[in-house]
């Protein structure tokens, strides 16, 4: 569902969000990794600290058993009570220190992780604010939400916990390897020979795992998207009693999500034991080769025992690394999806030469404007017209003729594909987007209200407005009376479903919103289609006051509304086919006159009405 302001005609084809899945990506993508690590840069100090604490802590974990052994062998065994007390206190000191290191390490990592989470969410949200409208036409709300929630979460897991674990593991692997080589180089190299095999299998596994994790990310975003859509459409589903069918469809999506997750975990559950088997093979190599060497008298038994201890210390971190690798794969899949969005360059953005706009008179020119949402399917063709400052121009034509598109181009939700649009002689692409939009006030076809109070909604375009100004705007839009009848007046919360307000009432609030914003140029797109006629009559005066001295573009089906426009443009299939004042167009006796007569006729069939005149 596209909200408010729906242009008629065609829309971009299906640049599907899930371009993944077809390609099995590289298990290790340098670019994504580098960008992910970039998030850690501001926290270099903290990360260094965390690694330090981690090293202290793992050092202590190695030291304590040694101290205990020493206590037993050298103090208890010889009956040295004095030494026993000293050692016990030393061990206690180790534990306390370890506690401190762990505490600070956890805290630091949590802090970094939460900071990164916050940054990424903020970054995504900011980017959503500048992306082109065409982007939102193509992506479901649910998908975009899911990137913000779950993809960001996986990345955080890697950056905060994963990286430090990895750093510690690598330090451990390297230092243990060095010690082993120092003790007995041939045996060490032999037992380390499984490492390349491990690396290779990790690489192969990574390839598959990334595809699997990518699938899980995709499925969860489909699931979220579907949920979001159906929750919004719950009324229609209930009204048509289609709960069964929709539930079946949801069941399928839900099932797919489950299966994708189970198979991804199956892969990683297989991977870890496979690595363990490799490490045991290394142990056996040591035992076998070492055993023969002992038999041959070239090696002592003590060396073998030491080696066995070391290999277990070596392969545990390797196994942990493989776990981190899994996190890495998931984070990479998430990173891909997030960077894909962050890398999108908005079509509509400030040109480097964009100027701030001052002293606007409101002179609008459409100069041979062409537009297409989908290349090759023109929606507007060669549209040219001029609105003089303060003039009102009305657009008339069948649904889907392109009237709304004209309005969308003026506020630069899309850029023209041919020709140009000028305001006071400046191409709107040369004006700062924010300035342009502040200049223009749009009352859209579909009145969108945000959750929040009615006052908040009216003041949306001018959050600093006082309560008096808000009330004045509401009065001008003829909304004040019904607002005062609501339980909490202006502080009544607008429910998300907006059921506490009728469609017409929402249109009035949108109108008040624009009145309060005091734009120099007004665009009314069927602004009062759902307002009853009595109310509309009342608003009409307010609108006329508002439009006085302002350049206005009005789209309406009720021709009564457009009759007073200085110029009427009849739009048909993306072209302007007639233009002139109401009287001129009637005299022309073309499409407009025809439209006018149809509308008029339906009314005039009532004999009573004619009599009443």
């Amino acid at each position, binding site marked *: *569902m596209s*909200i408010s302001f729906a242009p008629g005609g065609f829309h971009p084809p299906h640049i599907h969000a899930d371009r993944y899945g077809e390609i099995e990506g590289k298990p290790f993508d340098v670019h994504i990794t580098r960008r992910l690590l970039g998030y850690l840069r501001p926290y270099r100090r903290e990360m260094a600290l965390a690694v330090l604490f981690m090293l202290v802590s793992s050092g202590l974990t190695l030291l304590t058993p040694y101290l205990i052994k020493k206590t*037993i062998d050298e103090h*208890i065994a010889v009956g040295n009570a004095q030494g026993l007390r000293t050692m*016990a206190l030393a061990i206690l000191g180790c534990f306390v220190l370890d506690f*401190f290191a762990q*505490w600070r390490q956890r805290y630091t990592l*949590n802090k970094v992780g*939460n900071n990164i*989470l*916050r940054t990424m969410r903020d970054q995504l949200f900011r980017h959503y*604010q500048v992306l082109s409208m065409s982007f*939102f*036409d193509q992506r479901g*709300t649910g998908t*975009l939400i*899911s990137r913000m*929630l779950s993809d960001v979460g996986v990345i955080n897991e890697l950056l905060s916990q994963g990286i430090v674990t990895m750093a510690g593991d690598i330090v451990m692997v390297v230092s243990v390897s060095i010690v082993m080589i120092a003790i007995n180089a041939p045996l060490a190299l032999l037992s380390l020979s499984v490492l390349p095999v491990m690396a290779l299998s990790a690489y192969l596994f990574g390839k598959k795992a990334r595809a699997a994790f990518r699938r899980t990310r995709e499925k969860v975003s489909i699931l979220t998207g579907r*949920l*979001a859509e159906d*929750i*919004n*459409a719950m009324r*229609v589903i209930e009204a048509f*009693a289609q709960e069964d069918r929709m539930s079946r469809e949801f069941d399928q999506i839900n*099932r797919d*999500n*489950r299966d994708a997750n*189970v198979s991804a*975990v199956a892969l990683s*559950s297989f991977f*870890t034991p*496979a690595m363990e*088997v490799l490490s045991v093979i290394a*142990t*056996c190599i040591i035992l076998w080769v070492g*055993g023969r060497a002992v038999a041959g008298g070239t090696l002592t*038994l003590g060396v073998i025992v030491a080696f066995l201890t070391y290999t277990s210390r070596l392969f545990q971190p390797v196994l942990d690394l493989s776990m981190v690798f899994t996190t890495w794969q998931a984070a990479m899949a998430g990173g891909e999806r997030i960077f894909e969005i962050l890398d999108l360059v908005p079509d509509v953005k400030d040109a480097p030469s964009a100027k701030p706009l001052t002293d606007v008179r409101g002179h609008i020119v459409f100069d041979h404007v062409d537009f297409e*949402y989908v290349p090759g399917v023109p929606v507007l063709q060669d549209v040219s017209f001029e609105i003089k400052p303060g003039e009102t121009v009305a657009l008339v034509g069948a649904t*889907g003729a392109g009237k709304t598109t004209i309005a969308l181009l003026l506020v630069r939700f899309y850029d023209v594909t041919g020709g140009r649009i000028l305001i006071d002689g400046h191409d709107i692409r040369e004006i700062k*987007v*924010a300035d342009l939009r*502040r200049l223009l006030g*749009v009352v859209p076809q*579909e009145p969108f209200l945000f959750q929040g109070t009615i006052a908040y909604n009216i003041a949306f375009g001018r959050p600093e407005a006082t309560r008096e100004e808000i009330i004045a705007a509401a009065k001008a839009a003829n909304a004040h009376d019904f607002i005062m009848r609501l339980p909490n007046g202006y502080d009544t919360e607008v429910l998300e479903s907006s*059921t506490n*307000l009728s*469609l*017409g009432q929402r249109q009035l609030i949108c109108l008040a919103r624009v009145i309060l914003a005091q734009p120099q140029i007004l665009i009314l797109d069927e602004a009062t289609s759902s*307002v009853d006629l009595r109310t509309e009559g009342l608003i009409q005066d307010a609108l006329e006051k508002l439009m006085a001295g302002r350049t206005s573009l009005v789209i309406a089906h009720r021709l*009564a509304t457009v009759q007073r426009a200085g110029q009427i443009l009849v739009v048909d299939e993306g072209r302007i086919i007639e233009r002139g004042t109401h009287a001129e167009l*009637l005299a022309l006796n073309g499409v407009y006159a025809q*439209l006018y*007569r149809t*509308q*008029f006729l339906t*009314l005039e069939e*009532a004999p009573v009405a004619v009599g*009443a*005149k």
Partner: protein
Amino acid sequence: MRLYWRVLKYMREYWVPQAVAYLCMLAINGVLILSPQITRRIIDVGIGKQQMDVLAWMSLALVGLTVLRGAFRFGEGYLSELVSQGIAYRMRNQLYWKLHSLSFSYHDRAQTGQLLSRATSDVERLRELTGRGLLRLVDSIVLLISTTVVLLRMQPTLAVLSLAVMPLVAIIMRRYMAQQQPAFRERQNLMAVMTTRLEQNLLGVSVVRGFAQEPQEIARFAAVNDDIYDISMVTARRSSFTMPFIVLLASIGTVLILWIGGRMVIAGQLTLGALVAFNSYVLQLVNPMRRLGFIVTRLVEAHASAERVFEILDAESEVKNKPGAIELGPIRGEVTFEHVSFQYVGGSKVLDDVSFHVEPGQVVALLGPTGAGKSTITNLIPRFYDVTEGRVLIDGIDVRDVTLESLRRQIGIVLQETQLFGSTVRENITFGRPDATEEEMIAAAKAAAAHDFIMRFPKGYDTEVGERGITLSGGQRQRIAIARALLLNPRILILDDATSSVDTETEQQIQKALEALMEGRTSFIIAQRVSTVRNADLILVVDRGRIVAQGRHEDLIRESGVYADIYYRQLRQEDRVPQMALAGRDG
């Protein structure tokens, strides 16, 4: 506790794979105990006594055992994932079902972002708990208990000493859980607030852009983002202290043993070997404690999530089939409102003593100012809400006495706001009757004056609409929604301002088609245009929740001041007709 049990009950369905997963877990522990024995044999016998065959066999056994352990580990990981994913799947389906069964009044108050975050992130937390979380919990507890038993048997005095810190640990954990629980709850709530803000921003993107309010939106989002950060740090500060602290307490036990046990050895009350063995077992207590601390955090988080999920599952639907509700047979379409009053939950009275009677096949028009209660009246017919007072009868049967499905299937409704699904035009039109034939679908589309514009789309009826497809204009969407309702071939048709965004010419086409279709059907039309209303068999003039006048046009124009007022006002407005137009009418 009650909530945890309820989560655990979900495992019943998967008890076989779950049991196997736990057996695998125990088996892994068994292998872990066995492996060192083999290694010892290899060293002592194989290498030490130079028995190469023992070395060979035992090495093979070691590899075999590891493969076996790998298989168990795979089984444990895979099966627990299978179970937990199955539970998440079941919960999501239940939530989805529940959302369907909840009445409009629930959805009026509910926020999409809230529902969404419960069905995704809260369910995910519960999944983690039922999968690995619980497995590790059981694993740790088994290890703790068995170690404790061994310790007690070995040396009761020392064992009591080493376990002395346990009550303290328990107290700390309890306090920790009690502190974290509200914080986690708060965090989950804030997450939902954030989801809602994001969703609102995305839905209202054109308004945000149109008013150049991006900076304010960013600030609002940043505010909740900061709140999440703050509350996360509050929980992080506690958990990063408490978890290592518990480990420290357990470690203090080890030191005590060493010290006091050492003194006993020195005093000759204990052998050195016994102390060493005892100490290595005590060390085994530390790891499960460490894990336990981690799981406790998860448990607390899951509790907050469980509250949020079950809150939805336990919500009572205000509108539901009453026990013994009957299947409503084919209806004639007589509709009666008997002194109906209605108010939304917590709201003021929207309808007040509304009574009218409609014969089968009549066309009823509802007229009145915006917000008068017209939509509310029509919403009571398919029982989207239940009346607060009075009765709504169809063919003389109270709508509360029949099943919702049988009632709604016979009523076609075009809601004021046209909600289309992000799929093809075809699927949207056949939404209420997926089994409709091509001809039926096209006939409905033609009647709704939608066929022509649909055929102009590149893929006709197979064109995707909505989020990933083409964007339809308001009028086009309304016409698809009308086609959707018409395809149902309903006995009662409700058009709630269904053509407000359609141009007059198209509206006339639709009207003509509808007139033919409305033959013999009871129809309710809410419209702003008097022209639409004039030919109705019954006009209800609604104002501030009351019916202020009812009758036919001819009668009302004479008898009802309000109606006449609306009527002439409209005429005057649409009536600024120069003579030219009238001339054109003939020529």
